[in-house]
């Protein structure tokens, strides 16, 4: 049996793990480029210039220090909602309810703030309380989905999206009713949290602390999922539930735990939306971050660290939306179309894993 390599990459002596990493980077990047191409055709069909479009995304997303900060500002909630999809995905769950956890988390933060503000509690105590309330609400909300999944066999994808609608209705109920600030005439909102409770920007920037929280959580959760027994057990459960159960792993606890972590991430995003951006809870919380987060996580291949750059990319898309609307006279839904195309192309590209010849490690039985 003669052992000849089938590819130059394999011949260069790269290990199987390295090749797998290259593959995991090359396929999503390729999918992104293919989507850009498909979208260019779409633009050309409408008589718009793709070059101008991508140029504007660059200008609007990264062109100046203002636009970079705008991008980062929008990336922060996407990191958190991306994590909210990625962590349960590692244990084999497809949860698409981060939007609801974000909304309800933000609402809880605003609701907890009402007695704190009127009671004159200092921000040093008040803000952590608000953040904890937001994270707890999110954790319980999504944790419930995990519980239903594991102990009642309810499909988590549909359940989480239904819970999302229930969450939004719950917030609307309180915001339009019992907790409505009489001063908010046109847009029903809770009482403003006031300047004292506002989370300011990171010094020297206009970006709020949500970005820092997102970065820290991405690193912490990456370590949790890759370097700890919890993460190992969770990934093993995601690989094969039966095998994990046979090994005596507490599968139910792991499932609910991962879901609770996801909910806490989304809830924290809601806290920053309230405490740093809107200053109160209202319909502005329903901004679609939860849904874009799903795409971010898919593109990052559920890797917590990879979520950061991907979230920044989508933050840039969102940041340049206004510029594209004005300069190219295209509706704001243009970005939604682009995101939809990326989503479809990306999931189609899943079929390429293990099928691109020069990215496959040489197997011992290969012959020519």
């Amino acid at each position, binding site marked *: 049996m003669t052992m000849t390599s089938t590819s130059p990459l394999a011949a260069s002596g790269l290990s199987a793990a390295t090749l797998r990493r290259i593959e995991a980077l090359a396929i999503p990047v390729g999918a992104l480029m293919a989507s850009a191409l498909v979208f260019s055709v779409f633009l050309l069909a409408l008589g718009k210039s793709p070059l101008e479009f991508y140029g504007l995304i660059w200008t609007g997303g990264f062109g100046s220090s203002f636009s970079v900060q705008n991008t980062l500002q929008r990336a922060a909630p996407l990191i958190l909602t991306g994590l909210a999809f990625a962590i349960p995905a590692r244990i084999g769950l*497809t949860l*698409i309810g981060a939007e609801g956890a974000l909304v309800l988390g933000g609402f809880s933060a605003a609701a907890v703030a009402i007695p704190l503000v009127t009671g004159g509690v200092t921000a040093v105590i008040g803000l952590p309380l608000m953040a904890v309330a937001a994270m707890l609400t999110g954790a319980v909300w999504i944790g419930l989905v995990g519980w*239903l999944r594991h102990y*009642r*066999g*309810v*499909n988590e*994808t*549909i*359940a989480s*999206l*239904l*819970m999302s*609608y*229930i969450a939004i*209705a*719950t917030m*609307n*109920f309180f915001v*339009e*009713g019992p907790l409505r600030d009489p001063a908010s005439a046109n847009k029903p909102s809770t009482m403003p949290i006031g300047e004292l409770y506002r989370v300011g920007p990171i010094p020297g920037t206009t970006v709020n602390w949500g970005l820092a929280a997102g970065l820290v959580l991405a690193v912490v959760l990456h370590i949790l999922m890759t370097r700890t027994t919890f993460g190992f057990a969770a990934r093993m459960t995601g690989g094969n539930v039966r095998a994990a159960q046979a090994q005596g792993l507490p599968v139910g606890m792991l499932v609910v735990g991962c879901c609770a972590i996801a909910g806490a991430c989304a809830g924290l995003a809601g806290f920053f939306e309230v405490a740093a951006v809107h200053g109160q809870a209202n319909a502005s919380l329903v901004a679609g971050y939860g*849904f874009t987060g*799903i*795409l971010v996580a*898919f593109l990052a291949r559920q890797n917590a660290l990879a979520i950061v750059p991907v979230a920044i990319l989508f933050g840039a898309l969102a940041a340049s939306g206004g510029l594209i609307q004005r300069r190219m006279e295209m*509706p704001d*839904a*243009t970005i*939604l*179309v*682009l*995101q*939809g*195309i990326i*989503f*479809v192309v*990306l*999931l*189609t590209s*899943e*079929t390429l*894993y*293990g099928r691109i010849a020069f990215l496959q490690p040489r197997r011992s039985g290969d012959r020519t």
Partner: protein
Amino acid sequence: MTGADLYIVLLAMIGGAIRVSTPFMFVALGECLTEKSGRINLGHEGNLVLGAMVAYAVSFMTGSPWLGVLAAGGAGLVLGAMHGWICALPRVNDIAVGIAFMSFGTGLAFFFGKSFIQPSAPGLEAIGLGDWTGNSAIAQALQVNPLFLVGIALAVFLSWALANTRWGLILRMTGDSAASARAMGVNIDLVRLLATAVGGLLAGIGGAFLSLYYPGSWNEGLSSGQGLMAVALVIFARWDPIRCVWAALLFGAAGALGPSLQSIGISQGYYFFNAAPYILTLFIMIASARSKSAASDAPGELSIVK
């Protein structure tokens, strides 16, 4: 609440059930067909919204709402066929692709629908089934849209065709055991592609109902999860087209709860009653998830019940 009030609420709910249930019915029948072939399409929310937009735009431009319905079906067919084609590739997850199509369909609809938010397009005419009673409340509750009747006829036809035709047998076999279908020489990818495409077509028509009849205009908040609730509804209906109709009516009645209570002056908790259909769906899912009958009726190849 007095007896008269109760009467008004009940009548409003029956009327609401008839009005609101049609899109549920179409999406559920389409999804039922798709799931019978062993695949799930979670993207019907996208089909529904795109169908609504296309129907409204075509009706506005041509003046014919029925052309709009046709175009909506066409748009749904294209989305469904794309879903079916992509899912036939190896290693592709049908649930994830469904989420992608949810976002793709709504994105396209919002993009092309911007210019159709203002103008008003001709809608579908209703048939007054209750006009002979001479009672205006009953007559109003029994204003039935032709699509509602088409949906019921379709459910009866599907139920018959699945049980009694060669095509129905092939479809059910593909859904229950891909291996045996392959052994019989059936091209399972083709069967699933067709089932998903036709399912998409029906969901698109369901969308046309939203924009052309009730609520009867196009805007971006037109559908809030009806496409997805219909998927849950199929599980509840245990993959039976006739039961899909009953389930759709039940969902329609739940959706009409908020507005009908408002009609007798109970507006307290309006937003909460708006959540009723979602809560109902969730409870139904919880109740039917572990039941033995649901498990035995499910197509064997379906990923969500495995």
